[in-house]
């Protein structure tokens, strides 16, 4: 679930993200400050919380409906903007809908197909990326690309697309997960 929440400021990856996630989840489940208009205990909770408690056989149709109800409740309680994580419910849906292995939070079948397509392209005979000089250049360009993404103004919604050589370095760097996170 943590992976589903975009925009979490994460200088201390485990602890800060955990705390931020707690704030977000407690807000969307309890909406602190929401005026009680229904009999307790439902009145204390958001629609999503009540649905999660009751639904033994949840479906995404019902969950999506609950997201809409909860969004309206959060808007009334002036909490929607404070979440400040883009379209949070949409992110949850992307991270869960159709995902068969709950600990992975992405569709690894689709992702693997995309990665395989990339791998076949980068390993093509005419690619020429194997030369040490080419890889050294790719490493520098990868670093510059990261710096460019960091500098990119937040209001600029256009995401930058890496080139093949930059992507190769990026994916390789990710394989050393601990070093990559730091």
């Amino acid at each position, binding site marked *: *679930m*943590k992976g589903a929440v975009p925009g979490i400021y994460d200088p201390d990856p*485990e602890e800060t993200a*955990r*705390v931020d996630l*707690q*704030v977000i*989840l*407690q*807000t969307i*489940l309890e909406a*602190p*400050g929401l005026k009680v208009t229904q009999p307790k205990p439902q009145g204390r909770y958001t629609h*999503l*919380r009540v*649905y*999660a*408690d009751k*639904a*033994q*056989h*949840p*479906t*995404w149709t*019902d*969950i999506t409906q609950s997201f809409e109800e909860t969004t309206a409740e959060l808007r009334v309680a*002036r*909490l929607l903007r*404070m979440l400040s994580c883009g379209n949070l419910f949409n992110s*949850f849906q992307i991270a*869960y*809908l*159709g*995902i*068969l292995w*709950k*600990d992975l939070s992405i569709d690894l*079948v689709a992702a693997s197909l995309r990665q395989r397509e990339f791998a076949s392209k980068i390993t093509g005979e005419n690619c020429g990326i194997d030369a040490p000089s080419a890889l050294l250049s790719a490493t520098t360009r990868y670093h510059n690309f990261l710096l460019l993404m960091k500098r990119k103004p937040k209001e600029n919604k256009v995401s930058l697309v890496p080139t093949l050589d930059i992507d190769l370095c990026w994916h*390789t760097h990710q*394989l*050393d*997960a*601990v*070093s990559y*996170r730091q």
Partner: protein
Amino acid sequence: MNRLGLWATGVAFPLERLYSLIANDIWSDAASEQAWMGDSKSAPYQLWYTDPAAGGELQLQDIALTCPWCDHVDHFPLTDFTATHTTKSASCQCGNCRQNFNADTLSARSFRDDLLEFIQAQNGWLTLNYFIH
């Protein structure tokens, strides 16, 4: 939801060791296979028993899944399980609790279970008074 520990152990993809196997024309790492078989006896370590470049054939495995409705680990034929993901009408049934599920209901249940796991956690809830205005 809070599955700490995996990354905290410093787990890293052994790229150099994998490269070493390929460079030395070794199909499978014996120590890893031994560890895999000790931990997961029902599933073979390799999808190809021999190097596919040398003619080894792909041997797909059935799916072992913990039913989120009853926590029973059941095995499902790969083709049936795949159909729950690729078609809207197909479903699988847990052999223990007889619950039918497909990708939609399974993932919806996962989301609901993660929310409940958070709700039921006794520690770590924050005071949100500063949120209320």
